[in-house]
């Protein structure tokens, strides 16, 4: 064989070999990526199915899945860094790797229902409170990862939520608690997620004040009580809009009950 022919064969074999190897590497990587995406989408589907059955009731369900990674953002979660899923509801969750998640739906209300929020609880973590606070399905242990304290406020390197009256102290910031669900939110959600979901709930509350104001205007009866209701609704709404979340809806509740006592249609 001539020298040139040998060189050509050699170059041909090397080039073809590299191309084939590159193809297989590319194919394998793509295929693994695809399978991981498919797996993440499957988990996401399982979460959807689970929440569909939960959302009308305040109850919990467990999801047992292969170890997977959860990244929590404001309105969505990312599973295994592959599949981002928008959640249509307010939720509280934290980043991490888990194979056992508990989904718990709880109502948030301020006289009237604001929303049903979802807690995504990583039960591989240990939770603790200095009073009876966590429900049975939460992994409670004195050697805690997350602590909720009502009587004292320990200073350690663990995640500690301190509740002082109606104030939730989380990560050096104070949040007004208008429902216990927000304390659970602080315990189960990471700081950014908690802050974001808290703001969403406040926005919803403002919207609900608007809705009830408009609804109240739609009635022609009981004008005296209804005008008092409208005044209170506006006052409370303005307080919240101005950042004062310490609003009292008990007067509204009384007027609402008064409507019922006079056999008039209630507002909520």
């Amino acid at each position, binding site marked *: *064989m001539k020298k040139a*022919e040998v060189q050509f*064969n050699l170059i*041909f*074999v090397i080039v*073809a070999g590299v191309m*084939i190897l590159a*193809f297989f590497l590319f*194919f394998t990587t*793509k*295929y693994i990526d*695809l399978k991981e*995406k*498919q797996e993440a*989408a499957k988990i*996401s*589907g399982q979460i*959807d199915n689970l929440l*569909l059955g939960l*959302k*009308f009731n305040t109850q919990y369900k467990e999801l047992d899945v292969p170890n997977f990674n959860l990244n929590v953002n404001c309105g969505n979660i990312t599973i295994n860094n592959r599949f981002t899923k928008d959640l*249509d509801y307010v939720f509280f969750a934290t980043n991490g790797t888990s194979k056992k998640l508990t989904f718990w739906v709880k109502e948030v*209300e301020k*006289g*009237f*229902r*604001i*929303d049903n929020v979802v807690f995504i609880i990583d039960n591989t973590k240990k939770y603790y409170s200095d009073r009876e606070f966590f429900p049975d399905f939460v992994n409670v242990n004195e050697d805690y990862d997350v602590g909720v304290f009502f009587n004292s406020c320990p200073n350690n390197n663990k995640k500690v939520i301190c509740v002082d009256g109606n104030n939730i102290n989380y990560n050096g910031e104070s949040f007004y608690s208008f429902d216990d669900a927000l304390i659970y939110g602080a315990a189960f959600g990471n700081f950014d997620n908690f802050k974001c979901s808290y703001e969403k709930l406040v*926005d*919803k509350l403002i*919207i*609900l004040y*608007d*809705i*009830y*104001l*408009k*609804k109240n205007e*739609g*009635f*022609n009866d009981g004008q005296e009580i209804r005008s008092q209701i409208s005044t209170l609704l506006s006052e409370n709404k303005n307080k919240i809009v101005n950042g004062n979340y310490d609003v009292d809806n008990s007067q509204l*509740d009384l007027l*609402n*009950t008064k409507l*019922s006592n006079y056999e008039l*249609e*209630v507002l*909520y």
Partner: protein
Amino acid sequence: MNKKAQIGIQETILVIFVFFIVLMIGMIFFFQLNMKSIQNDIDQYNEFRFKQLIDIVPNMAELRYSKLGVEDVYCIDLLKARAFSEISSEYDFGKKEIKLISGDEIVLYSKIGRGEIRKVTSPVCVYDPRNGKFYLGELDIGWWA
């Protein structure tokens, strides 16, 4: 090396090369099929999420009828629905149109998209607090995929 051997080596290289080309085509085909199946799964998942809205919308606190804080009747409050339709631009359900038809038509939410629209309709209980009567309404949800 004699000529016969040279031809033999070249033939082997060619056969292996052709074999790998066929294998690569096969793998691409297999990959495409997988992609199609995953795309179907994604479509089904989106369809499922879309149909979920039929359950989610009437259950929203912004729309659901309640009496003294108790939501024991699964109905949409007509006055709440009218109020919601005026402020629903603050919500983001994506490119969808949600209508409540009960006597007249109330557009609860509308963000028009392009292309073909998919629709799902469901009967829904509607309560008019002005006269205290319950009606049978229709909830229409349109979705631009």
